[in-house]
């Protein structure tokens, strides 16, 4: 039932009412006050194509790693605290960030792009891991003696802080978790803000919605976690 495209003859529009034609016209408006032009179905389809910038791709690759640490932090909750609010918040964050990681991976894969950060060994060279595994969420911070104090990117906990969190229990864990996650979320919001400040970034609709969601969800979670931290 699917037929190939029938070319729409632009000139024909001028001859009469749209109803007179088998193929109704497609108008692309001008800016307000300016006339519209007619386009072919193929041109119309091409108007839906949105590009992604190099910065968009970097953002997605980095955010996968960034989110990965939030999932890892959530996995530390079991056995370290009895605070149900922290457990609930942690589970929620871990599950939403895990599903967003899948979304980001799918977005990159659909475009034939790597889901991993570039500059992997640059990170490795700065002592934050080893080789290509440096970027993986489960950073191997115990294997090399003293963990680094330098976080992989803004808002992430440093390997040293992750070790500290892993060792903490009870009230101390709650504080480190909440403070760390607030910092972590703020880092993600900063990453979005930086991305959107660049020309031509964040125009892909799915990415655009994701950026909005990151700001909205994580801002809301930050204010809730601030409240929880204050109540401890």
């Amino acid at each position, binding site marked *: 039932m699917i037929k190939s495209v029938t070319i729409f003859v632009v000139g024909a529009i001028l001859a009469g009412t*749209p109803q007179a034609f088998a193929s109704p016209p*497609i*108008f692309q408006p001008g800016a307000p006050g300016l006339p519209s032009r007619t386009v072919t179905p*193929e041109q*119309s*389809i091409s108007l839906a*194509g949105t590009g992604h910038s190099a910065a968009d791709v970097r953002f997605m690759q980095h955010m996968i790693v960034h989110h990965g640490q939030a999932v890892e932090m959530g996995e530390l909750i079991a056995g370290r605290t009895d605070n149900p609010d922290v457990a609930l918040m942690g589970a929620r964050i871990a599950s939403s960030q895990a599903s967003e990681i899948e979304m980001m991976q799918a977005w990159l894969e659909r475009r034939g792009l790597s889901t991993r950060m570039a*500059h992997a060994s640059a990170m490795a060279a700065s002592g934050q891991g080893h080789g290509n595994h440096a970027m993986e969420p489960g950073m191997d911070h115990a294997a090399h003696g003293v963990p680094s104090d330098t976080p992989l990117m803004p808002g992430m906990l440093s390997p040293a802080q992750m070790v500290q969190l892993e060792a903490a229990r009870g009230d101390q864990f709650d504080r480190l978790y909440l403070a760390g996650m607030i910092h972590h979320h703020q880092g993600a919001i900063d990453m979005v803000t930086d991305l959107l400040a660049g020309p031509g970034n964040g125009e892909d609709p*799915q990415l*655009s919605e994701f950026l909005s969601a990151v700001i909205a969800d994580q801002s809301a979670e930050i204010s809730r976690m601030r409240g929880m931290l204050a109540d401890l």
Partner: protein
Amino acid sequence: MKATFRSMVSLAALGAAMVACSPTVDDDMSEAPPSRAGLAPGLFDAGTAIWNLELTASVPPPDGFFDLDTVMIPLGRPDDSEGEDEPADDDGSDETAETGADDSGASDDEVGEEETGPGLLAFANSDLAFTGDRVIMGGFHGFNVYDTANPDDPEHILSVVCPGGQGDVSVHGDLVFFSTEQNRGRLDCGNGGVEAESSPERFLGVRIFDISDLNAPRQVAAVQTCRGSHTHTFVPHPTDDSIAYIYVQGTSSPRPDSELAGCSGGEPDENPDTALYSIDVIEVPLGSPEQASIVSRPRIFTNHETGEIAGLWAGGAMEDGAQTAASTVACHDITVYPEMGLAGGACGGNGILLDITDPVNPRRISDLADPNMAYWHSATFSNDANKVLFTDEWGGGLGARCRAEDPENWGANLIADIVDGELELRGFFKIPGEQSDIENCVAHNGSIVPVPGRDIMVQGWYSGGLSIIDFTDSDNPFEIAFFDRGPLGPDALRVGGYWAAYWHNGRVWAPEIARGLDVFRLQPSAYLTANEVAAAELIRFDEANTQTQLHITWPDEPVVARAYLDQLTRSGALDQAALAMVRDTVDAWSSGDADAASLTAAAERLDTATTDAGPSSADARRMAELSAMLLRVR
């Protein structure tokens, strides 16, 4: 490979035989609904289940607004990608190490400013607006206009391409109002990208088109807003028909001041001027729409006692095991009911009731939160404005939320009564959990079906199909008709289904995200008699925007009287003798043989029974309406 869809023969009507008009309710018509489980997947040939409806037309998307590859994009990762090796560009990482970890992007050469094909939802159809013999269908790619002089054979007459968001659409006179919210939105509806960091060419807000000349529709205004326009609502001026207002519901994060003066974000304790926690009100001089501008940004979530701007639900679960609700920073949608001076706002973490007698300064008079609600999404008033039905878009519309394991009050309709100006929770309704995990499904947009004497609503449930419910008893809503298709394709969730299902001028109009525009007629059943259907089909409006709710007044016609009588028969509220007597009188009126005395006698008989039925019951209201009608036509 992209195939463009050009035309398709309308699906033949499903051939459901018209049930003979019968003034009585026939129990034999009560058939068990078919199962909606396991319907075969397919784009235009999916399996269907239909109950008490007839599909009269199915108009596929027009050329230039359909792309097979785009429509069939699976959401998330297809199963077969699991375990696949990562694309190998880590191999050269030793070289990038030399350049350090700056952001110069040496390894991004293969990416550049790359044009990709249309993304998920790029051609999705969304909302409808109705004017004269035309239906306007908005969407993520622009809007399409259909001639519906023959409603069962809509003819596509023009397209306007204008990508940039879900394209919520309204109409008034020759003007079409259209929402844009995505970063790709441009003033000229193009896709050349926005070159500067903060470009005046970027457009997020509400566009106004003039469609008076179908050969040359034009954009006449584009009102920028801080958070774009996810949805908008047309609000007539109470007395001056040269002015209208547009309520703008923006759900994106606020734009920076450098891009649009006066915009900023953040929480109000840090930034009292934040563009969050408000709606935008645009005033449109209808004679010169190019002068449309924002006239107020009412803080409708303010705590009336403390003055706190962020005065409503802060987000999160209300109690253990409760749904995680959105925070109330914006309204997703607002339905105004101008004749009642009211609006219902569905605002993330709350449903709210607004007094809009001064449309520029709407005032919140009640609000509701509920542990079952994740995202208050839309609102529909009952015709008498004694109830509001709110939908909950749990999962945002992309998720499968109508499976057997999904809670039956989550992602559902919540019905609230309005008691002394306050919203009070009553019942919930959700379609049965028969949808699969590859069908995006949750409660979505709908409108009132104008059956006198009952509160009936039709709505879309995305890939869960469309459903018609009776919520006359707000504690006990129940389904009376539905239509459902199988998923778009096998194995993976693809985003499709009914964005909405709206009643207008005798038909149900249902924009299908991927498959185009469908039209339905009601079929009489045990739940809806031929008279009730005919009475609903009498109601006509020249212009209708669903979020601008119109008050329905039924004409004094015998079929309306018979609809009430059918309801009184069904409920048993009127005894057989009284029923027979009033029916005979209506029959006589219908054939022009009723005298004033018999009409008066029938009205008095009803008035007596009204008292017995309890003056506030639905049956009492039906009897009172019927009695009043008989007295009017004496």
